């Protein structure tokens, strides 16, 4: 039965039920409820919780836990996720899975406490040094986020990659009715250290980066082929297709439904995986579409880059791609509709 739960708490409980047995992290608004909840909840199920001295230490504790083959979690926001990039890069290099939840807040540097989508480019391009990708999940409701937690671990373990769940301040803080998933038996992955050197690992001095690059590309190609996830509505006959994810994706869905009712042929692609980007959805777009419009909660427009890239790749036509960056918060339906009117009136120019 569904019960009203706060986003961060529901996600934390879903992690416990997915068999997570180590959380390490450092408090930061608007993500802190995740660690507060797990500080007492994980010991109840025989798991470990460490309040780390920093986000750097937190992600490195997670690295240590993952190397032993258990399901591990950390969460943070804004500058905290910046500090975690060192560990995310190292986890990726060692092909150790972990779930990192970024409850995105707005701003550069210390930033603000406003809900936002300003970390899109960083999360979808790796984020730390080197050349790697994380699978990036971007739920638009608490139920979707909760259902995704188990999937996140399955994907991470299948492909041996870090999975980033990019929620937003709004999703973490709001309450919605949620049905929690069933409990899973915690597992030990076969590569986990047991002190007996049961799993033979190639030492860093014996690695061949050129050969690894071939394998890496193969793996990423497989992820792109098999793991694109999205929701779409009304794009087959649309004159204009909106692209928006997360909570803004939800309000954009409301906007396109109202616009449809008012006689505008509009549709929506809502990415559920930001990486791999759901380019397959673009194959369903009306070939005579007049424009692609992203709705984003950031300052400069980031999702628009991917929307334009895949418009070119899939549609092979010079279709204008617009960005509606609302800086922070959840773009209201009436404002999305007003901006759409401005696009139709030629008052907002395309980005690409």
């Amino acid at each position, binding site marked *: 039965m569904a019960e009203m739960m706060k986003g961060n708490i529901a996600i934390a409980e879903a992690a416990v039920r997915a068999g997570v*047995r*180590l959380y*390490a992290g450092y408090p930061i608004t608007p993500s802190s409820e995740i660690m507060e909840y797990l500080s007492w909840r994980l010991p109840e199920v025989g798991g*470990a919780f*460490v309040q*780390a*001295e*920093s986000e*750097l*230490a*937190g992600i*490195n*504790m*997670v*690295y*240590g*836990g*993952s*190397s*032993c083959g*258990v399901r*591990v979690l950390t969460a943070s926001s804004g500058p905290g996720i910046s500090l975690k990039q*060192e*560990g995310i890069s*190292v986890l990726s290099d*060692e092909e150790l899975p972990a779930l990192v939840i970024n409850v995105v807040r707005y701003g550069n540097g210390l930033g603000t406490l406003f809900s936002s989508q300003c970390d899109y480019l960083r999360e979808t391009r790796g984020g730390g040094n080197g050349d790697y990708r994380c699978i990036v999940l971007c739920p638009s409701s608490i139920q979707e986020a909760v259902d995704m937690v188990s999937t996140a671990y399955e994907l991470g373990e299948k492909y041996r990659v870090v999975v980033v769940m990019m929620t937003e301040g709004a999703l973490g803080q709001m309450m919605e009715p949620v049905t929690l998933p069933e409990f899973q038996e915690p597992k030990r992955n076969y590569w986990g*250290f*047991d*002190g*007996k*050197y049961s*799993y033979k*690992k190639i*030492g*860093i*001095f*014996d690695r061949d980066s050129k050969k690894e690059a071939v394998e890496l590309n193969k793996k990423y190609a497989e992820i792109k082929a098999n793991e694109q996830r999205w929701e779409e509505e009304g794009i087959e006959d649309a004159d204009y297709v909106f692209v928006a994810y997360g909570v803004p994706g939800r309000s954009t869905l409301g906007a396109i439904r109202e616009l449809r009712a008012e006689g505008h042929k509009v549709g929506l692609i809502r990415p559920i995986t930001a990486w791999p980007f759901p380019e397959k959805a673009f194959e369903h777009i009306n070939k005579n579409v007049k424009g692609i419009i992203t709705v984003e909660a950031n300052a400069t427009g980031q999702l628009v880059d991917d929307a334009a890239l895949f418009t070119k790749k899939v549609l092979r036509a010079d279709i204008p791609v617009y960005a509606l960056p609302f800086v922070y918060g959840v773009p209201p339906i009436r404002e999305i509709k007003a901006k759409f009117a401005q696009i139709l009136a030629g008052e907002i120019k395309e980005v690409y």
Partner: protein
Amino acid sequence: MAVERKVPAIIDNPMSFCPGCGHGIIIRLICECLEELGQDQNIIFPIGVGCSSNLGGGLVTDRLHCPHGRAGAVATGMKRVNPDNIIITYQGDGDAYNIGIAESINAAYRNENITVITVNNTNFGMTGGQMSVTTMEGQKTSTSTHGRDCSITGFPMRFPELVASQFHIAYAARGTVSSPAHINQLKGYIKNAIEAQMNKEGYSIVEVLSPCPINWNLTPIKAMERIDNELISYFPLGEFKQRSVKEA
């Protein structure tokens, strides 16, 4: 009774340390202790960045290269999920005390049940001999070319003394490899540290003064002499925190 001293089974590959380096002796001692304590098939090494990384190439055990300075945190994550494995961090002074001071201090502060071995050669060896937090006053390095000026860079840090005096840890000691007598003494310290972890007494650390002839610009013998004549007076050998629980 005489006991044959064989190379411990978990040391399988040659390691590429410079001639006259102390790392080889230290790694050998750790592995001998693990074998003698019956823990050589129950060991995970989170390894630092720098010359200490070479441990990874030499041993056939579970081992993981950590980001620079973070071994204290990585070891914490390992120990919390695998409490019955012996976890030994193997780090240099630059790794553990410069870039990793936060992770090192906090692992000690929590009295994390891990063992820390820090090889103190008073410089960043791997990157070409830069000044570290343990570089002696007046010591010339590639970033203190006129000799370390402690008035603007601080004085050499004595980490085992710091954590032994301030935190509730299980064991802290400093040894060296400058003579057979010192090597035997050091082996006793390492054994104590591992036993403390086996008995779940808490955090144990052994710092080892180790020669770096290449970056000290000394012959191997002169480098050993520098330890005895110059370093020990500032970095005294001995136990700074003794185990309160002794084995039966």
